[in-house]
């Protein structure tokens, strides 16, 4: 496996854009990434495109076709929330193994609004699935409400601590002009927002957003043709599924994520202490705390404590979700994993403006989703 360089990044603002099609949104991110990389579209040898909610076949060809027709292989992939990070891992593998010298990973989404119902369409017949849905079981925030209750009993975490996650991430998003929601809010605002499923309130859930983000990866030799200053190296790119099933999976601690993180640390030859900045999967406030533990930022049960101590804020020991995370930057499902890459790269280059984490050299991006599946990517400057 050879060294892989992150040559360019691009993003469209996150939000809702009734006047733009998914093609418009995707093209913006790709053109920005090409410009940032200083590479021409004709030099891209393969593209990995991800999207979650659209049902149009070959969407990648439609989006890329409005930029150019160069005959390159285009794969339209999906992996629930880790869709875009899966595209990144695919592009990384293709360059690392020598299949291609320059590859594009891009995710774009026009998400439907409202509460998401997980479509668990495997091994069930239609009648049973409809019966489940009619009973109102199949609502994602419900799973996290269960997790919160359990953690409150087991670890003594409080609703204020959960709310604090949303407050912190919004504070970060306030400094990110690309974020979906940028107005600062207080713990009271979070707790008093509409109750979704007790104790989850509206502002403890990520919005359903639209957006697109892109990354261009290449071999080190190729990178030197386009840039002379420093490069960000992809130190690891891991995509995993679980090795064992437990009914509590994803409830209080997700073993899968820990396994993916450990593998990524191993691959990079680094430990959690070496990481300066983290982007992690926070669709709900409880998820952020759970993942502190999965990524070994603290022991199991200590997550609420390190949050309260301010360790994971900008200015703290290990800032988490400096762009606002899913909670405030937003969750355009098919693109989120690549927004994480964009933020990490801006931070590692020292281009993150007001939300810059001083001296950040190593960044980690983590996503988890239905399947289940998880990705952990480590970037190193």
């Amino acid at each position, binding site marked *: 496996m050879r060294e892989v360089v992150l040559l360019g990044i691009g993003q469209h603002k996150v939000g809702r854009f009734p006047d733009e099609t998914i093609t418009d949104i995707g093209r913006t991110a790709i053109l920005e990434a090409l410009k940032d990389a200083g590479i021409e579209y*004709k030099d891209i040898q393969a593209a990995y495109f991800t999207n979650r909610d659209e049902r149009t076949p070959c969407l990648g060809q439609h989006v890329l076709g409005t*930029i*150019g027709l160069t005959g390159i292989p285009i794969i339209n992939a999906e992996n629930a929330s880790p869709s875009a990070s899966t595209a990144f891992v695919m592009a990384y593998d293709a360059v690392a193994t020598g299949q291609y010298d320059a590859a594009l990973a891009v995710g774009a989404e026009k998400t439907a609004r409202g509460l998401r119902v997980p479509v668990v369409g495997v091994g069930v017949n239609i009648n049973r699935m409809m019966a489940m849905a009619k009973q109102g079981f199949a609502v994602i925030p419900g799973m996290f409400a269960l997790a919160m209750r359990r953690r409150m009993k087991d670890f003594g975490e409080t609703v204020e601590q959960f709310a604090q996650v949303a407050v912190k991430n919004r504070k970060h998003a306030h400094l990110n002009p690309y974020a979906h929601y940028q107005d600062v809010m207080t713990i009271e605002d979070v707790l008093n927002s509409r109750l979704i499923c007790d104790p989850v309130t509206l502002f403890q859930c990520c919005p359903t957003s639209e957006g697109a983000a892109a990354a261009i990866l290449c071999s080190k030799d190729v990178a030197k043709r386009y840039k002379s200053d420093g490069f960000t190296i992809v130190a690891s790119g891991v995509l995993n599924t679980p090795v064992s099933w437990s009914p509590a999976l994803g409830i209080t601690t997700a073993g899968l994520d820990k396994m993916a993180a450990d593998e990524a640390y191993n691959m990079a030859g680094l430990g959690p202490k070496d990481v300066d900045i983290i982007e992690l999967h926070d669709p709900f406030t409880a998820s952020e705390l759970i993942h502190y533990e999965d990524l070994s930022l603290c022991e199991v049960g200590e997550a609420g404590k390190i949050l309260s101590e301010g360790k994971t804020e900008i200015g703290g020991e290990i800032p988490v979700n400096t762009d606002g995370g899913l909670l405030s930057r937003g969750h355009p499902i098919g693109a989120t994993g690549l927004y994480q890459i964009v933020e990490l790269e801006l931070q590692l280059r020292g281009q993150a403006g007001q939300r810059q984490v001083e001296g950040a050299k190593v960044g980690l991006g983590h996503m988890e989703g239905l399947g289940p599946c998880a990705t952990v990517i480590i970037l190193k400057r």
Partner: protein
Amino acid sequence: MVEQGMKPIAEGLFTIPSLPGEQPRLIGSKCRNCGRVYFPKEVVCNACFQEDMEETLLSNRGKLYSFTIIHQKPMAYSGPMPYAMGLVSLPEGPTIMSLLTGCDFEKLELDMDVELVLEKIVEEDETVTYKFRPVQA
């Protein structure tokens, strides 16, 4: 015939004449760099990758590249059955998928001259679209 107040099936596909005697035109885009013409409009030229396109009005005459008579009603369509559609090659380059009108199905021929008209899809609805009809000899 097009009257005041009719609404186009989609924005930016064709011009609606405002003066008597004026012809409708399809709206395409032309690459300032390599000259390639697209319909409908594109933002980036997919031949030379330049983001340098200008709007251009296309000829309202072309040649019928191929045609078919559709016998099974597709979803989203509410006009009369059966009906004719074809591909029309324009002198600027693009080949355009279009409904055919003002024709006897039996008399359609490949490569015949056809011209652009605006017409309703359904009589009761005010939505108009572009169609091509054989040029009267």
